């Protein structure tokens, strides 16, 4: 099970990154050093350029590929102005423009850090709708850590609970789709079951095997008339 952490923390060291690493360690049983953490801070300029140029620079493209290819995601943002940070949103904006299916069906654990516990509902009113829109499967328990939580026992329990849910969902969805990296045939989603798109050939619209034949495109117009 590959889990990738996306952290929008800005300081070094960052409590946002720390929360992401603890969640990943709890979900995978791996040491923090073995978990891939994408620091959006390092990609901030590339993300801004992606908006103006329309394509990602190599480092950003690699990060997007890692996120798209992961079995599960842990996303962590500091709270800015009662919401996720602009940098955090911008990363998922450019990711969605590049591949609107990037997060479809993917288990995502949402987490946030803030200076005060009064912003804890940011998980529910900002992050959860964003990832619902991106058609991710959002883990029921989100984890919010205010400054004071770092000296409090309750945070551990929430981390364990959320991480357990992420691990269970990731395992279940991987099993349902027959493993990672491709799987079910190409073309349109038949509806019904959760569509799991994981960056393999199945979701690739530039793969000749996935093209909707021209006659079908033309016929669809005639029947719609």
């Amino acid at each position, binding site marked *: 099970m590959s889990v990738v952490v996306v952290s929008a923390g800005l300081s070094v060291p960052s409590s946002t990154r720390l929360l992401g690493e603890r969640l990943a360690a709890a979900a995978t049983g791996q040491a923090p050093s073995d978990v891939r953490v994408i620091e959006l801070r390092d990609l901030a300029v590339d993300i801004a350029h992606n908006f103006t140029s329309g*394509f990602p620079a190599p480092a950003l493209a690699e990060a997007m590929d890692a996120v798209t290819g992961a079995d599960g995601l842990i996303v962590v943002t500091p709270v800015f102005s009662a919401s996720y940070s602009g940098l955090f949103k911008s990363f998922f904006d450019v990711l969605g423009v590049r591949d609107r299916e990037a997060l479809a069906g993917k288990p995502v654990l949402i987490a946030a850090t803030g200076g005060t516990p009064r912003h804890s509902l940011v998980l529910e009113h900002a992050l959860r709708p964003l990832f619902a829109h991106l058609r991710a499967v959002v883990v029921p328990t989100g984890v919010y850590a205010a400054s004071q939580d770092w000296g409090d026992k309750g945070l551990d329990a929430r981390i364990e609970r959320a991480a357990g849910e992420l691990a269970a969902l990731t395992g279940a969805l991987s099993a349902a789709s027959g493993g990672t990296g491709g799987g079910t045939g190409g073309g349109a989603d038949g509806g019904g079951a959760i569509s799991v798109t994981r960056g393999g050939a199945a979701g690739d619209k530039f793969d000749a095997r996935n093209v909707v034949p021209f006659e079908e*495109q033309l016929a669809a117009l005639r029947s719609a008339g």
Partner: protein
Amino acid sequence: MQFGIFSVGDVTPDPTTGRTPTERERIKAMVAIALKAEEVGLDVFATGEHHNPPFVPSSPTTMLGYIAARTEKLILSTSTTLITTNDPVKIAEDFAMLQHLADGRVDVMMGRGNTGPVYPWFGKDIREGINLAIENYALLHRLWREDVVNWEGKFRTPLQGFTSTPRPLDDVPPFVWHGSIRSPEIAEQAAYYGDGFFHNNIFWPADHTKRMIELYRARYAHYGHGTPEQAIVGLGGQVFMRKNSQDAVREFRPYFDVAPVYGNGPSLEEFTRQTPLTVGSPQQVIEKTLSFRDYAGDYQRQLFLMDHAGLPLKTVLEQLDLLGEEVVPVLRKEFAKDRPADVPDAPTHSSLLAGREVTTV
């Protein structure tokens, strides 16, 4: 292989002087650039089509007709003709008329256009962009090939007993290219008809262009028009040259830094590393352009974007001198090397006419 230039037709202030050309100046400059293209031995001039400022070329066949009268050999084309918002009947008529006036020196590149408000201005819906491209072209294709057309579709008033006039010159429709940056449906459409596929190639990394072209080639073969290697591919390119590469970088940077599309974004150095843009000596342009073959295969048409971002006409004409004298002759020679004999040239009116006579004999 054909070499030429394509123009967006933007009216952009020259960032080094702050001066904005008038629309008349820009239109006349586009004509001067086209005439220069023929003078320096290029094969193709293509104009964009836009219906909003800061662009001037809203009426491509008017401009191309005028250029046709003042040139002898230049192929007149578009980059692109809006197959979505134009009436396909009017496209059929306009380009057939141009064919007659230009003695067949005409082809056309279909595109969808990417400016949201243009669709509603012409009574269309941008969400139907692909479908408009498919249905409108299906009609256009018939109008050029059938003398009397009865037709009914989703987007246009039905036609009963309609004949598009004038008929195409020698009953040979203009060759059609389909341009698209990221829509596999358009590569599929081009492949289905056995038409050409053009990738603008200039604002995006090469690996993306490569995937679109591979898709088109595979589907071209699927539809039985030939091998994947025989599919008709065109690419864009974007260059700024001086004898010394440092001079090119110094002179172009102020234009690059504030240019429409990519200005105020990645640095010139990053952009030249990640996209086909080349700013340097003619030799660097030659090397970069030859490298397109590594990901696109042997192809048929190379168009360069030379007049944009507020570059003054005098500079553009100097660029065309360098392109025609120092770059294209070498490219013609180098691209011909190791080119398989069964890879065709881009179709022209005379080659299509000759091909038809062979098949009807």
